[in-house]
C-alpha cells in the first residue's frame, strides 16, 4: 500500500511512456517476494466518477478488491471499487511535462473567462 501509488519507470526513448512501479519493493535488486501492486479507484456515495484512492499489494484481482475494500472503503467512502494492475497503466513521463502541459499556460483564450455571466445565473 502506498498512499501516492507507484512511482514511474520510463522508457529510454522519448514518447514511450512510463510504467508505474512500486517504490516500496522495486529496488535495485527487484525483490520477488512481494505481491504485485494494484491501483485502487473508488466511487464516492451519491454518484460521481471513480477516483484514484491509492494502491494495494495483492496476489490476484479478488484479493486486490478485498484489500482495497479494507484499506480504502471501511468508513463509507465508497459505493464501488475498481482495481487495476499498476503495470497496466501507462503514465506520462516527467520529460513530457513541457510539451504536454506548458502550452496551456500562455493561451488564455482557452479559458472561458471572457464571458460575462448573465444575470440570473447562480455563481458558485
Amino acid at each position, binding site marked *: *500500500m502506498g498512499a501516492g501509488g507507484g512511482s514511474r519507470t520510463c522508457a529510454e526513448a522519448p514518447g514511450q511512456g512510463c510504467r508505474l512501479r512500486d517504490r516500496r519493493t522495486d529496488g535495485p535488486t527487484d525483490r520477488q517476494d512481494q505481491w504485485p501492486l494494484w491501483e485502487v479507484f473508488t466511487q464516492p456515495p451519491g454518484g460521481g466518477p471513480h477516483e484514484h484512492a491509492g494502491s*494495494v499489494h*495483492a496476489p490476484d484481482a*479478488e*484479493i486486490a478488491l*478485498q*484489500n482495497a*475494500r*479494507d*484499506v480504502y472503503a471501511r468508513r463509507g467512502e465508497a459505493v464501488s471499487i475498481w482495481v487495476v494492475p499498476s503495470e497496466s497503466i501507462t503514465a506520462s513521463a516527467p520529460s513530457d511535462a513541457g510539451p504536454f502541459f506548458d502550452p496551456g499556460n500562455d493561451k488564455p483564450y482557452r479559458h472561458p473567462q471572457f464571458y460575462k455571466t448573465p444575470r440570473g445565473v447562480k455563481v458558485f
Partner: protein
Amino acid sequence: MTVRRSDGPTDRLFEYLLRLGDDRLVLGHRTSEWSGHGPILEEDIALSNISLDLLGHASMFLRLAGQMEGEGRDEDALAYWRDERGFRNLQILELPNGDYGFTIVRLFLFSAFSHFLLERLAASSHADLAAVAAKAAKETRYHVRHAAEWVVRLGDGTEESHVRALAALDQLWPWTGEFFQADEVDRELGASGVVADLESLRAPWEALVREQFARATLQVPEVPMRMTGGRKGRHTEHLGHMLAEMQIVARSHPGAKW
C-alpha cells in the same frame, strides 16, 4: 461472580445472548492478536478490521444480554468482570492462533457457521435480537468471503502452505461438532421461534465448507468429534490465559474512562 441458574424464558435468552456475545468476543480478541503481526500489511489491516467487526458484534449481543438480565450489567461488565467459568463461547474459538493457516481455517469454519446462524436469527420473533443479528450478518458475509478466498489460496498454493492448511483443518475439524450441539436453552427458545434450530444449519454449513475445501484441494478428515462444553462454562487451558490478558486493564483500573 455467580452464574444464575433460574430457568425462566428471560434467563434462557440471557444465556443464549451470552453465547452469541462470547463467541464473537473471544474470536475477536484472538484475531486482534494479529494486529501488527500480519504476514503482509494489507492482510494485517484486513484481520484487524475483522477483529473490530467481531468485537462490535460481541458488544451488541452482550449489551442486549445485560438488558435481559436486568441487573445493571452492561457489555463491559460482562466482558471484563466474568471469569473463565462464566464464559459461554465455543472452545474452538479460544484456541491459540497458531500459524496463519490455522487462523484462516478457523475463521472460515466459524464465520460460515455464524453466517447461517445470524441469517436465521435475523428472522427471530424477538425484535431486538433480530435487529442485532441482521446487522452482524452483513459483516459476517464479508468475513466468510475473505477467509474462504484465503483457504483456497493457502490450500491450493505452495507445497508448504498446503501442508500447513491441511494440518490446521485436521486439527480444527473435530472441534466443529460443538457448533451444532443443542441443549435445553436452544430447544426451548427454538420452540417459541426466538432462535434457530442448530441441527438445521448443519447441512448448509457442511455443503459450503466442503465445497470450499474441495476447491482448496484440502481433504476433510474422517475423525470423531471432540467432547466439549464451552456452552456450560467448561473450557480449555487456553481461555484463562487469554482472559487474563484481555481483562487486566479493566480490572486494574475499575471504572476508568478514556
